């Protein structure tokens, strides 16, 4: 208890930056659920692939500690573009391979979930076996620095040195905390505007509300579903960059736990609700930090899982409990 009170500000700031990452990943769950009523269980893998894309990009550009500010910004932008592109691509691929056929057949939702679980495990293992795959393709030697130690974590080059910017209470808020929280907020604002203001966003909302009427009104529902997956993938890519910047490493099976937590955040805020995902992410990040300060860090994941179970049992519609369809500007 004393520990919680003594470090309240520190726990709050780190909780918020963790929550911002959860929220960005949660957007992918929430968008797809809002449109298709489907838990895209493999979304966590989309995130994980983005994190690897970011790591590889910075590595390939030769980024390392002590680079000038301009270079760091360049690295980060390149990593962001690469991660978003790769994640978006994986998300589109996922839609095509794991879901399209099931959607056309109007398959039961449980079958779709099983397909998603299969896709998630296949993607994670593919990354975990990338050294073997590269050897199999005869590229093992050329790609060695990228595929080496496939089952261990890959470190993200430490291009940013953590420097305290200002002091809040007795905690020094670092540049990384600030970067993570503000970029997450900017991304989310952009997505919110996109869905609320543009033609494509209107299409998404229309399909979420009533797919049949939407297609009668001239919305190409296939295209819209693809767009939804793509948007989710882009957000996951952005989250992936922030994740590797904050945490510093990524592993082929990191996706699972983070995915479950992001899903918890999505449900917490009200699944299908974009602003709910933001709120849910922050609440979850804070709850995890406070909870582990209270009962011990080793119980951190238990706190998240318990929160998930309790929310689903008592308020399955979440805190804001609203669907994508009803989202207004």
């Amino acid at each position, binding site marked *: 208890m004393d520990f919680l009170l003594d470090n309240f500000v520190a726990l709050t700031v780190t909780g918020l930056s963790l929550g911002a990452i959860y929220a960005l990943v949660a957007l992918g769950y929430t968008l797809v659920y809002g449109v298709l009523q489907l*838990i895209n269980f493999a979304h966590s893998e989309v995130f994980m692939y983005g994190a690897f894309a970011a790591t590889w990009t910075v590595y390939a550009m030769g980024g390392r500690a002590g680079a000038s500010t301009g270079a760091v910004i360049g690295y980060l932008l390149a990593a962001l573009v690469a991660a978003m592109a790769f994640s978006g691509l994986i998300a589109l691929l996922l839609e095509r391979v794991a879901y399209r056929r099931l959607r056309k057949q109007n398959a039961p939702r449980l079958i779709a979930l099983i397909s998603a679980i299969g896709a998630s495990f296949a993607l994670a293992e593919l990354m975990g076996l990338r050294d073997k795959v590269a050897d199999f393709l005869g590229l093992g030697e050329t790609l060695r620095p990228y595929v080496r130690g496939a089952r261990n974590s890959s470190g993200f080059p430490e291009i940013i040195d953590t420097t305290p910017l200002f002091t809040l209470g007795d905690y020094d808020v670092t540049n990384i905390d600030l970067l993570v929280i503000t970029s997450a907020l900017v991304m989310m604002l952009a997505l919110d505007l996109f869905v609320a203001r543009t033609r494509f966003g209107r299409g998404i909302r229309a399909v979420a509300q009533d797919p049949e009427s939407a297609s009668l009104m001239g919305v190409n529902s296939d295209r819209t579903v693809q767009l939804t997956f793509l948007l989710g993938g882009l957000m996951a890519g952005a989250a992936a960059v922030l994740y590797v910047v904050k945490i510093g490493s990524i592993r082929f099976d990191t996706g699972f736990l983070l995915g479950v937590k992001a899903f918890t955040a999505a449900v917490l805020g009200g699944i299908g609700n974009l602003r709910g995902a933001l709120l849910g992410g922050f609440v979850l990040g804070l709850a995890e930090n406070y909870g582990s300060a209270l009962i011990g860090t080793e119980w951190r994941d238990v706190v998240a899982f318990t929160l998930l179970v309790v929310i*689903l049992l008592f308020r399955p519609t979440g805190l804001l409990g609203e669907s994508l369809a009803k989202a207004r500007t």
Partner: protein
Amino acid sequence: MSDTTTEQTGASHASRRSFRERVAGLPKPVKIVAWVLLAVLLYLLPIINPPILTTPDIDFGGVLLTVTLYVLVALGLNIVVGYAGLLDLGYVGFYAVGAYGVAVLTSQQASWPFLLALPVAVLAALVSGVILGAPTLRVRGDYLAIVTLGFGEIIRLIAVNSESLGAASGIPGVGTPPSIELFDVPKLVWDGGVASVNVDDTSTFLLFSVVDLIPYYWLTLTVVFLVIWADIRIKASRVGRAWEACREDEDAAELMGVPTFKFKLLAFAMGAFIGGLSGALYAGKQGFISPNSFLLLFSILFIAAVVVGGQGNRWGVIVGAVLVAYLPERFREFTEWRVLVFGIALMLLASFRPQGLLPPRRTVRARKLEERLGALQEGGDRRA
């Protein structure tokens, strides 16, 4: 008789249908003899050590034991997923409760005999099923899947973080079933197509030790037979029909006077019971357990066994479990690809054969009926 009717109904399905009808039409004594023969063959399998089936790199008896444990788990999960239609992604949790129950009672906190600890551990698994089921079963469909996944992970994390449960390093020295050394059974050795008896390599009937896993296999196989028998009885009863009704349409079942919640809870409890039983047997065989034996991955492999085989058909899920457990051991050089292959297989199955390899008869019948209705409608349209 049956041959003439099948010939009339169609050529492509003739062989399959006539096989089923022929089996069903056999006189009862013949059926019983066939069953007994099959059972005897299964019991003798590790002794016979058949050349192609046997695993070159690893003890065949141990592999058969793993396979039977998977079959047991799949039978239990089939009740939950296949009969009652509740997707449970945390099934490994009950398996863990059973295993930890035995380990704690025989080694960590007390030194009970295995046979006394087993029923208590299994009962604990059953109670945990009721405790988890009572609140969660009000949630439906894919939310239920996520809640059970959460519970499965919570159970594992509690084991990792509790000193009294051995924490991350687990519990060593788990008790074994009591041994009665009656006689030695020599194994066969194959050279080309010729079998000879190897007198040096023997299994002692019912000596449970780490060196020889075959007695564990016999024990587990017996449990599997008992569970199959119970499964057949329950499936054919009012309870089985109530489960199917819940699965097909919960609201309609409720309106027809089926107390769906009670029956779903019963399915959950029975599933937990069987899961706990296999966990307890696993702990006895392993002699040592750690939280790493209860990762979410295993829940997914169990689900894979049920879905691949054909959820709702006990023979189907047995086939699925045998495939999931046996293939990676037989082709051990590919073990590391196993999860990748299962992931892809799940995806492909969901897209192209969602009912599994051996779907239950009722599903097949329902699909045929639908096809016939479709054909009739098309015909009607053409005439109009």
